[in-house]
C-alpha cells in the first residue's frame, strides 16, 4: 500500500503536466490563429489610416511666398513683403487694389513667387509693377506667350512680373530678378463678389501675407550678382530628389511676432441702408459716411494668419430690395441687376418632394460612406410630415427604398433610417440609372421637387449624366453634395448648375452637420421659384443662361450686355403660389465700375457650361474664353498678365506698354518707410545664409534659372502601395502548419 500514495502523487504530477501541456497546445492552437486573424484584419485599417490625401486649392487658406534657389540644401530667405489692400465695395461687387512691396534683403538676386487664393468667381484684371521710378503696366497675353516672355526676361536678367491662374481660385504672381537689397512694388487689381448667407453680406479677403516658407520643394534659385559676366551660375544639382530636402526657413518679422505688415481698408457702399457692420477677426475702425456707406480700416497692422472677413447686413424689408448698376465700356453698356427676394415673415411651408440619392460604391469606402450616411440621416430628420420623400442607393446596382415617394410619416422615416444605416460601400459606380430614377417625375404633378445627390462623383460618363439632367430635369432641382476629400467638383458644380440647385462640399465628418444644416435650411425656404427675366430692349446678352431659384436671403444677380441701357428689365417668379414680378427701369441704373468684368466672367463660366453640355467644341469654347479674357483684361486659364521692365534690355518680341502714370501708392506708403520694415531674422537661419553665401563665391558665370514651382507646398501625397498578400499567405501557411501538426499529433495519440 505504500506504493499507492507514490502512484497517486506521480499520477497527480502526471495529470498536472499533461494539463499544462494541453494548455500550451491550446493556447498555441487557438490564440495564434486569432492573433493572426486580428493582425490580418488590422491591415486594411492601417492602410486606410494614411489615405492619399491631396491638398485641394480650397485648403490653401493663405497666400504663400516662395523662393527659388537650386543648390542642394541651399537656403535663401524670402523677400520681405508689405501688403496693402484697398477694397471698394459697390453693391454686390468688391474691387480690390492689392499693393505689395517685395524687398530682397539678401546680397543675391532672387525670384519671388507669391501664391494667393481668391474666391472662385474673382476676376484679376490689372497688374502694375513699379521699379525705381518707372511704372510698367502689364499686358494681357495668352498664357503660353506670357510665360515665354517671362522666362525670357528672367534669363536676360530683366525684372518681370507674371500673374497666372493656376486653378479657378488660385493665382500666382512671380517676380523675377529682384536685385540685392532692392524693392519692387507690384499692384494687382481684382474684383470679387460679395457673399450672402443667412441674410448677412460678407466679404472675405484672404490675408496674403503669412508667407509660409514652405519646407517642401522650395528648390530656390539664386544667382551671383556679377553682371559683367552675366548671371552667376548655380551648381547644377538634380532639382527633384528625395534627398534634396529644403530647409524650413522661418522668417521672423517685426519683433518676432511673425507677421508681415498688412494694411487694409474698405470703402463700403452696400447699396442699401446698413444695419450693422463688423469685422469678424480683426480690430477695425468704422466711419459712418452715410446710411449706406461706411469706411472701414484696420486699426494698425493685421494679423496675417487669418483672413479678413467683413460682414454687414441690411435693414429687413418686406419687399425685395433691388440694385441696378451699369457701366459703359467701348460700344456697349453693361448692366448688373440684383434682386433680393422678399423677406416673408412666416414662410408658408408647402409640402415638398425630396428624393435622397446616396452613392455606396466602393470608391466611397472609409470615411466617405460614414459622411454620406450621417448626411442622409440628418436629411431624413429634417423632413416635415407633409413632405414626401424617397431614398435611392446605388453602386453598380441600385435600390429604390419605396417604389414611389411616400409621405414622411414617422414609420416611413424610421424604415428609411434603418435602410441608410445598413449601407456599406462596395461595388462599382453606375450613376445614370439612379439619376434617371431620381428625376423620374411621372407620378406627381406640381409643387417643389428637390433631389439631393450624395456622391464622390467618381464616374467617367460625366457627359452622359449632364445630358440626362439637361433632358429630364423638369421641375426637379438638383442639389449635389460632394463627399470626401477630393470629389469630382467639375461634375458636381455643373450638375447643380444645370439642375438649378447648388453644390455643397463636405470634406470631413465634422463638417457634415454644419453643411447639411445650411443646405437644408435653404431647401426648406425657397423664396422665389420659376424665375424668368425679360428685357424690353433687343440684342441683350444675359448671364447666367439658366436662372436659378432664389432662396431666402440670397439675391438673384443678373449681368447683361446691351447696346444702350434703356427700357426695362422684368424679373418674374413665384413666391409660394403667388406670382411675383418686378420691373427695373434700366435708365435709372447708377454707374459702377467692374460691371463689364462681372458679365465677362460669367460669360466665361457660361462658355464652360456650354462646353460641358456639348453645345460647343473645346476649340470654340477656348476661342470664346480667350476673346472675352483679352477684351476684358481678365486672367483666366488661358490668359496671364505679364509686365517686363524693358529698361535694361529691350526684348524684340515683347511689346510692352510703358506708362508714366504714377502708381498710386496707398496712403502712408513710401519707400523710406518700406525700407524700415525690418525683419528680425532667426539667428540660425542667418547662419545658414552665411554658409551658403560663402559657398556662392565659387560659383561661375553662365546663368540658367530653374523653372519656378508654382505649387511647392502642395506636394503629392502618395497612396498606400503595399498589398497584404504575402502577409496573408504567410499567416495562412503558419496556421495550416499548426493545424496539420495538431492533427498528426491527435491521430498518433488515438492510434497508440
Amino acid at each position, binding site marked *: 500500500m505504500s506504493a499507492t500514495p507514490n502512484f497517486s502523487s506521480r499520477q497527480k504530477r502526471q495529470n498536472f503536466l499533461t494539463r499544462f501541456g494541453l494548455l500550451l497546445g491550446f493556447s498555441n492552437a487557438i490564440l495564434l490563429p486569432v492573433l493572426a486573424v486580428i493582425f490580418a484584419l488590422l491591415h486594411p485599417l492601417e492602410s486606410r489610416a494614411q489615405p492619399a490625401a491631396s491638398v485641394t486649392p480650397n485648403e490653401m487658406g493663405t497666400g504663400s511666398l516662395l523662393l527659388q534657389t537650386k543648390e542642394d540644401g541651399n537656403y535663401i530667405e524670402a523677400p520681405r513683403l508689405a501688403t496693402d489692400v484697398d477694397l471698394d465695395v459697390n453693391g454686390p461687387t468688391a474691387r480690390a487694389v492689392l499693393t505689395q512691396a517685395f524687398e530682397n534683403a539678401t546680397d543675391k538676386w532672387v525670384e519671388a513667387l507669391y501664391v494667393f487664393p481668391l474666391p472662385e468667381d474673382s476676376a484679376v484684371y490689372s497688374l502694375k509693377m513699379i521699379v525705381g521710378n518707372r511704372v510698367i503696366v502689364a499686358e494681357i497675353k495668352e498664357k503660353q506667350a506670357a510665360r515665354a516672355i517671362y522666362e525670357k526676361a528672367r534669363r536676360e536678367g530683366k525684372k518681370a512680373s507674371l500673374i497666372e491662374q493656376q486653378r479657378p481660385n488660385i493665382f500666382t504672381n512671380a517676380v523675377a530678378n529682384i536685385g540685392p537689397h532692392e524693392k519692387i512694388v507690384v499692384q494687382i487689381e481684382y474684383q470679387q463678389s460679395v457673399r450672402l448667407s443667412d441674410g448677412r453680406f460678407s466679404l472675405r479677403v484672404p490675408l496674403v501675407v503669412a508667407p509660409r516658407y514652405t519646407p517642401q520643394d522650395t528648390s530656390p534659385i539664386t544667382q551671383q550678382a556679377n553682371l559683367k559676366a552675366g548671371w552667376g551660375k548655380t551648381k547644377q544639382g538634380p532639382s527633384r530628389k528625395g534627398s534634396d530636402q529644403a530647409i524650413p526657413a522661418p522668417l521672423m518679422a517685426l519683433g518676432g511676432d511673425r507677421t508681415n505688415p498688412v494694411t487694409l481698408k474698405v470703402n463700403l457702399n452696400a447699396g442699401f441702408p446698413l444695419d450693422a457692420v463688423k469685422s469678424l477677426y480683426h480690430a477695425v475702425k468704422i466711419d459712418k459716411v452715410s446710411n449706406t456707406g461706411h469706411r472701414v480700416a484696420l486699426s494698425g497692422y493685421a494679423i496675417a494668419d487669418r483672413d479678413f472677413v467683413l460682414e454687414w447686413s441690411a435693414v429687413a424689408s418686406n419687399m425685395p430690395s433691388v440694385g441696378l448698376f451699369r457701366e459703359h465700356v467701348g460700344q456697349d453698356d453693361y448692366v448688373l441687376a440684383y434682386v433680393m427676394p422678399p423677406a416673408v415673415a412666416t414662410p408658408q411651408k408647402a409640402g415638398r418632394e425630396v428624393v435622397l440619392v446616396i452613392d455606396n460604391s466602393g470608391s466611397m469606402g472609409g470615411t466617405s460612406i460614414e459622411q454620406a450616411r450621417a448626411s442622409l440621416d440628418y436629411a431624413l430628420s429634417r423632413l416635415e410630415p407633409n413632405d414626401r420623400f424617397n431614398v435611392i442607393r446605388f453602386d453598380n446596382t441600385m435600390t429604390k427604398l419605396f417604389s414611389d415617394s411616400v409621405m414622411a410619416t414617422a414609420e416611413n422615416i424610421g424604415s428609411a433610417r434603418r435602410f441608410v444605416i445598413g449601407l456599406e460601400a462596395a461595388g462599382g459606380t453606375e450613376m445614370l440609372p439612379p439619376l434617371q430614377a431620381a428625376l423620374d417625375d411621372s407620378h406627381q404633378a406640381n409643387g417643389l421637387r428637390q433631389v439631393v445627390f450624395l456622391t464622390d462623383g467618381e464616374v*467617367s460618363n460625366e457627359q452622359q449624366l449632364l445630358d440626362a439632367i439637361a433632358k429630364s430635369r423638369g421641375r426637379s432641382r438638383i442639389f449635389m453634395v460632394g463627399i470626401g476629400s477630393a470629389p469630382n467638383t467639375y461634375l458636381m458644380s455643373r450638375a447643380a448648375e444645370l439642375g438649378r440647385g447648388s453644390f455643397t462640399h463636405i470634406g470631413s465628418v465634422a463638417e457634415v452637420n454644419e453643411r447639411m444644416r445650411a443646405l437644408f435650411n435653404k431647401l426648406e425656404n425657397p423664396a422665389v421659384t420659376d424665375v424668368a427675366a425679360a428685357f424690353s430692349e433687343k440684342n441683350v446678352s444675359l448671364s447666367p443662361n439658366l436662372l436659378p431659384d432664389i432662396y431666402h436671403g440670397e439675391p438673384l444677380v443678373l449681368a447683361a450686355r446691351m447696346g444702350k441701357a434703356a427700357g426695362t428689365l422684368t424679373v418674374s417668379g413665384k413666391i409660394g403660389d403667388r406670382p411675383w414680378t418686378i420691373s427695373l427701369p434700366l435708365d435709372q441704373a447708377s454707374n459702377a465700375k467692374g460691371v463689364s468684368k462681372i458679365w465677362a466672367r460669367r460669360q466665361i463660366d457660361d462658355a464652360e457650361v456650354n462646353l460641358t453640355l456639348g453645345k460647343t467644341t473645346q476649340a470654340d469654347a477656348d476661342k470664346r474664353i480667350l476673346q472675352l479674357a483679352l477684351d476684358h483684361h481678365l486672367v483666366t486659364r488661358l490668359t496671364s498678365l505679364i509686365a517686363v521692365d524693358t529698361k535694361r534690355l529691350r526684348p524684340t518680341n515683347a511689346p510692352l506698354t510703358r506708362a508714366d502714370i504714377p502708381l498710386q501708392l496707398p496712403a502712408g506708403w513710401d519707400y523710406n518707410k518700406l525700407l524700415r520694415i525690418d525683419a528680425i531674422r532667426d539667428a540660425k537661419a542667418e547662419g545658414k545664409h552665411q554658409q551658403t553665401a560663402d559657398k556662392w563665391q565659387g560659383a561661375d558665370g553662365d546663368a540658367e534659372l530653374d523653372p519656378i514651382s508654382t505649387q511647392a507646398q502642395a506636394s503629392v501625397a502618395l497612396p498606400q502601395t503595399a498589398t497584404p498578400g504575402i502577409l496573408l499567405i504567410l499567416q495562412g501557411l503558419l496556421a495550416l502548419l499548426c493545424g496539420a501538426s495538431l492533427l498528426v499529433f491527435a491521430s498518433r495519440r488515438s492510434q497508440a
Partner: protein
Amino acid sequence: MIAPTRLQIIGSTPARSLLTFTAGILIATGLFLAVQGGWIYAKAALAQVLLERAFAASVISGAPEKPWSWADTWPVARIEVPRLGVSAIALKGASGQALAFGPGHLDNTSQAGEEGTAVYAAHRDTHFAFLKDIRENDRIRITRRDGRTFTFRVTSMAVARWDEAEIDPDAHGVHLVLTTCFPFDAVTSGLLRYLVYADLEETMAK
C-alpha cells in the same frame, strides 16, 4: 511505464475530438488566409489581361473603355520598361480599388507627356515589383490612351515618406514619377515610398 499512462489520459475522447476540431479550424483559417493572399496576386494578374483588352479598345475608339462593366476606373496608359521586359496597364486614379488591378495614375497630376509631372503608383509586390531593378538611364515608355508614346529616361531614384515626397505636379518640363512602397521585401505596409524620377526623352506619335 510512464508513456502508456499519459496516453491513456490524453487519449480520452473529448480531448481528442477537441484537438481534431481545433486542427480543423486552424486548417480552415490557414486555407482561407492563404487563398485570400493568393487572390490578391491572381486578381492583379487577371485584371491586367482584361485591362490590356480594354486599353487596346480605347486606343482604337479614343474614348475611355471600362475593363468590366462595374469598374470605377478605366485604363489610361501602358507603362513599359524595355530593358526589363515588363509592361503594365495603368488605371485612372490611385484608389485602393484601382491599385488592386494595376498601377494608378494619380488624379491631380498631369498626363504623361504633358507639361508637369505625371505620377503613377502601384503595389511593390505586383505591378511595380520591377522598380527595384530599375537603374539610372533606363528608358520608361508610356503609351497613352490616345495612342501617343513618350519615352522617359530615369534620372534618379529616392526613398521618401509618403507625405514628404518631393514631387511638384506643376513642374516645368515633362516629368514622370513611378512610385511604390518601400522596402520591397517588407511584409507589412509602411510609410516609406520608393520613387523613380524620369524626364521626357523623345515623343513618338503613333
